[in-house]
């Protein structure tokens, strides 16, 4: 009965195609943090070169005990005031939360590893989700991130790339959450919005 329910949710809520915004590429990989080879690391790249770079905005948990990726990314965004962010690294399976100074160092290490491969500095944000109170498996994350970022063919701006990204974020989710829409503004400009989300438990956000 449960399997049937999961299958019907997948059919009802997961699209089979989409439209995706110009200036982005996304990639994902299985690093081995999640069991049975599931995707557990995703990277979003903003590839459009424009003066001042892309703009970024964020809302974060108001839980007093913020996880290391939240602390690290909040500081990054405060410093750059929403300018020049061109990469977001997302890992699932381990939340890197309640992990103290070691957790913070690991979060910074992930940023450094990404920026080393991308040849950039101070342009990366993080998101983590999964088991709380355990440290990141840095050997697996480092190997996975290197493999992903050194393979340009792993990145795309097509439906399968975005669907895989949404799967790489999942934890207890039973289906990936991906929505995309194109809009035509008064005046004729056509633009695209695409969104991915994850979550199934420990859900009562009050972000700011």
């Amino acid at each position, binding site marked *: 009965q449960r399997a049937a329910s999961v299958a019907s949710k997948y059919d009802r809520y997961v699209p089979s195609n989409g439209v995706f915004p110009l*200036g982005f590429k996304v990639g994902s990989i299985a690093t081995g943090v999640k069991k049975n080879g599931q995707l557990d690391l995703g990277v979003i790249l903003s590839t459009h070169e424009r003066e001042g770079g892309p703009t970024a*905005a*964020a809302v974060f948990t108001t839980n007093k005990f913020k996880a290391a990726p939240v602390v690290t990314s909040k500081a990054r965004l405060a410093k750059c005031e929403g300018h020049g962010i061109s990469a977001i690294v997302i890992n699932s399976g381990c939340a890197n939360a309640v992990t103290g100074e070691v957790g913070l160092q690991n979060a910074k290490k992930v940023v450094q590893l990404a920026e080393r491969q991308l040849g950039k500095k101070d342009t990366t944000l993080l998101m983590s*989700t999964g088991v709380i*109170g355990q440290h990141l498996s840095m050997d697996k994350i480092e190997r996975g991130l290197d493999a992903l970022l050194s393979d340009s063919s792993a990145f795309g701006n097509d439906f399968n790339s975005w669907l895989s990204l949404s799967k790489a974020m999942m934890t207890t989710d039973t289906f990936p959450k991906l929505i995309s*829409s194109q809009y035509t503004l008064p005046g004729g400009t056509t633009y695209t919005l695409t969104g991915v989300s994850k*979550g199934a*438990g*420990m859900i*009562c956000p009050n972000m700011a």
Partner: protein
Amino acid sequence: TLLGFIGTDLPISASALQNILSSAVNRSFNCISVDGDMSTNDTIYMLASGAVDTDLITESSELFPVVKAQVTEMAQKLAQLVVRDGEGSTKFVTVHVKRALNFADAKVIAQTISNSSLVKCALYGQDANWGRILCAIGYAQLGDCASLDESTLNVSFVGVGDSEGAELNLIVDGVPNVNIDEAKAAAMLADTDLKIVVDLGTGTKECNFWTCDLSHEYISINADYRS
């Protein structure tokens, strides 16, 4: 934990983008609950690549409110997908609190109903237990009770999807409807989707909040998650 990302190819100034995202989140991701627990990791990012060749959108642009509304609509759909996938959930419930004095009161009441374990158990059991809804309204942590007036309080179940159009008035102007059509209630509560409407009758503000029921499955998933 809730994680999300919204990408667009419009050129939007940094402050306008933050304004758009914060506003959209307050009417979407901050209006959902599966289990009442707030994660240490909740994060939503939005990036604007600016790859579409058009004027930069700032807070004073004519298009700013149009884009803000479209981002809010997408954020609500993404947030609702999270609730539909709530661990062990079998029901998707919209709690619509309307005619409150202010949005904050409407949201506190909607969230309190949505986080009530007893309301969520009744939803799982397909039981039209309006007493638990009333009880949750009564303990909602409101700054004051200005939004609450028993004589103007109305609570009803409204059918969605297959039961579209059906309405069950549970409390009418503060008086419980003891002659509930149980067959009608059972039919509505058998559906996956349901809407609980709380009309406070004291103002003009409203809040839509999305939640799910609480099932045995939720406990099975979370009893040993760490392992």
